[in-house]
């Protein structure tokens, strides 16, 4: 189990966002959300302004975790792809590299087949980006040069956060 913090630098974020933006375009989707499997939103793009993305990320992670539990009950490692069909909007949820959840929201301007096809291709690309991020974190840890904002934060900074 990997319990280390997920650290995302600006250059990594731009790579993730670029893949998500391409997926919106290629799949003709309304929105794409990249979520950490623990429920943290990593990136979002598309036309779904104003949606509560924090809740979306948390509920998606909960749903994927629950479905993963069901998978194990029936002897599967995971159900890596979930599809929810609505009257106007549909959700395509896929688990990438076991740690990242890719959520695609689409309506009748697209189709499940197209979304599946594009997710398969670009999901692989996203997996590679996160693999690079993981390797980078491993290298930093191995060389003892893991840099986080906490290296500069003092106990006083933390106490000040709770002083009011």
């Amino acid at each position, binding site marked *: 189990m990997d319990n280390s*913090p*997920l650290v*995302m630098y600006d250059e990594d974020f731009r790579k993730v966002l670029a893949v998500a933006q391409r997926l919106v375009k290629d799949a003709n989707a309304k929105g794409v959300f990249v979520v950490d499997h623990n429920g943290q939103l*990593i990136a979002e793009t598309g036309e779904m302004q104003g949606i509560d993305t924090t809740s979306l990320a948390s*509920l998606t992670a909960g749903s994927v975790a629950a479905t993963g*539990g069901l998978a194990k009950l029936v002897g599967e490692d995971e159900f890596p792809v979930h599809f929810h069909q609505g009257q106007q909007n549909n959700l395509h949820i896929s688990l990438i590299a076991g740690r990242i959840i890719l959520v695609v929201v689409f309506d009748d301007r697209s189709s499940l087949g197209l979304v599946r096809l594009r997710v398969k291709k670009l999901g692989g690309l996203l997996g590679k980006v996160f693999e690079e991020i993981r390797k980078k974190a491993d290298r930093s840890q191995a060389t003892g040069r893991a840099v986080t*904002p*906490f290296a500069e934060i003092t106990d006083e*900074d933390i106490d000040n956060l*709770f002083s009011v």
Partner: protein
Amino acid sequence: MSFINYSSREINCKIVYYGPGLCGKTTNLQHIYSKTNPDLKGKMISLATETERTLFFDFLPLALGQIRGFKIRFHLYTVPGQVFYDASRKLILKGVDGVVFVADSQVERMEANVESLENLRVNLAEQGYDLDQVTCVMQYNKRDLPNAAPLDEMQRLLNPGGRTEFEASASTGQGVFETLKAAARDVLRDLKQMGR
């Protein structure tokens, strides 16, 4: 497992409220939600049964302010306390940075408290964590009830190691923010240690 995002300059951490059924985990979150400035909180989500028992989890995102230009956000979760929801509890502990154990002070719930604490230890171990190493703040809730057990007995049963602890009455709000602040502070200190 915290998420540090240099792009949006945010640090996100996860705190899970754990404890036996009806001990007041959801009430803790409801009090925090009701007393927090709307600019600092997101929507509170409760996945509950028709009788308002937690079915999967409650979720409350909270912004605590900034440290050195990084926004500090905490995601607060509760687990369903009823014994038969163990599979759900395990899922919610994934990626946890800190735990608040809410104990029910009523004498007749003491066995349930002990069982739940042991269940927390087992479920954390399955996620690769050791309860003795994880940030865990103890809250003795329902201290206002007439059938509350003596504090020293609860300490002996639930907190022999002397974790940070608070007496509380979540229904009136007493001790709720003190518990949260202590847990959040300890989580940030842990992350600081890791960042060295």
